[in-house]
């Protein structure tokens, strides 16, 4: 078992900010992430509201800079590595990775962020990339002059629909409620477009392929009657979920939605375990806030390490 002063799980802005601080304080720091470094920021086209950058910076560039900065101060990384076992208690903390390496530390900062929510219904995974998509800018042009479904009625669904309308012949929005949750100004732009119709109070239950068409089996949430509709493709934008499933066997307090409950100094209910960034229960989720969370958690670790 290899020992570090701090293990940070998650290499997004919160985790990397924490790593920069703990490494600069001469604490041996290991950052683990199931993907590459950068979290959701690396997939953001341009970041225009991060202080210090007069011109927007590409998300992957900002993420790369954060990682490089942490490495420069001595942070070690284990990336593209899953945490397969995790023990967090007041007395002992260790993590095992998918290559069976085990690491222990006195302090752990959980900064695993959030990810786009999946519907987790039959067919979704099978047709990812061949009929089911999650990104209008990436895949919209594959559906030029085609008919598609958009699943969701929040801000991201409506913003992505506006992008898709530049390409597609028609959009059928499937939404679980009888009104859209998106901001009115964006929702109005979509709903007033003649290429858009909305299937209210329905939820998809399964996706199928029928020749070249995608079939959605949707349930009317009021009558529970199921219908089947065919289009050329399906775009899913149903919000975000905290990346906290790996904590299911850990006695850490979560909200009913899976966000980690912390105090103002990012402390969790387990001594020496902190949470930072989008995985933490809070009202606003921004890169700047994640960086602030990570900084606070790191400063607490540094303070307690000195004690």
């Amino acid at each position: 078992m290899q020992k570090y002063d701090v293990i940070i799980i998650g290499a997004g802005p919160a985790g990397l900010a924490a790593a920069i601080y703990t490494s600069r304080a001469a604490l041996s720091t290991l950052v683990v992430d199931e993907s590459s470094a950068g979290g959701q920021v690396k997939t953001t086209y341009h970041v225009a509201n991060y202080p210090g950058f007069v011109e927007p910076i590409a998300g992957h560039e900002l993420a790369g800079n954060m990682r490089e900065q942490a490495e420069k101060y001595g942070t070690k990384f284990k990336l593209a590595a899953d945490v397969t076992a995790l023990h967090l208690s007041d007395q002992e903390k260790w993590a095992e990775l998918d290559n069976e390496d085990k690491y222990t530390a006195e302090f752990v900062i959980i900064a695993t962020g959030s990810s786009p929510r999946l519907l987790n219904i039959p067919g979704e995974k099978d047709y990812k990339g061949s009929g089911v998509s999650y990104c209008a800018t990436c895949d919209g042009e594959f559906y030029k002059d085609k008919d598609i479904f958009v699943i969701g009625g929040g801000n991201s669904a409506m913003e992505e629909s506006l992008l898709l309308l530049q390409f597609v012949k028609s959009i059928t929005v499937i939404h679980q409620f009888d009104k859209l949750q998106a901001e009115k100004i964006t929702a109005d732009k979509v709903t007033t477009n003649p290429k858009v119709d909305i299937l209210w109070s329905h939820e998809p239950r399964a996706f199928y392929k029928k020749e070249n068409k995608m079939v959605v089996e949707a349930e009317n949430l009021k009558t529970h009657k199921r219908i089947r509709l065919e289009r050329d493709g399906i775009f899913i934008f149903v919000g975000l979920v905290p990346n906290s499933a790996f904590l299911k066997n850990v006695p850490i307090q979560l909200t009913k939605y899976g966000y980690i409950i912390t105090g103002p100094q990012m402390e969790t209910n387990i001594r020496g375990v902190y949470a930072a960034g989008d995985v933490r229960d809070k009202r606003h989720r921004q890169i700047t806030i994640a960086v602030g969370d990570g900084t606070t958690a790191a400063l607490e670790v540094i303070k307690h390490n000195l004690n």
Partner: protein
Amino acid sequence: MLQTNLEHIESEEQLKELIENNEKVAVCCGRMGPMCIPVYGIFEILQGNYPDIQFRDMDFDIPSAAIIKGLPECQKFFGLPFTIYYRNGKVVKATSSIQSAKEVKIVIDEVFA
């Protein structure tokens, strides 16, 4: 132009030469978009873990990307990136859209074991 730390494939000839001269090759063909960047990042990390595999990327919008787009395995793909795994010069697996590190590792273990 892709801004990654992977070696880029910039022509059909380059890809042909690569797969002719290397047993195991993985190519991620995409753009600098939200579905593609994570896969490039995973390739960058995995190339250190799997020295026997040649990991490359290719810009989806250059004319030479036709060699990927035209593959029979890609004809029903509607999501970037297109990720192609070659063994002994032949396509042994192709995936469409974003893949997690876990998914990529499963494919590698399946086709390059």
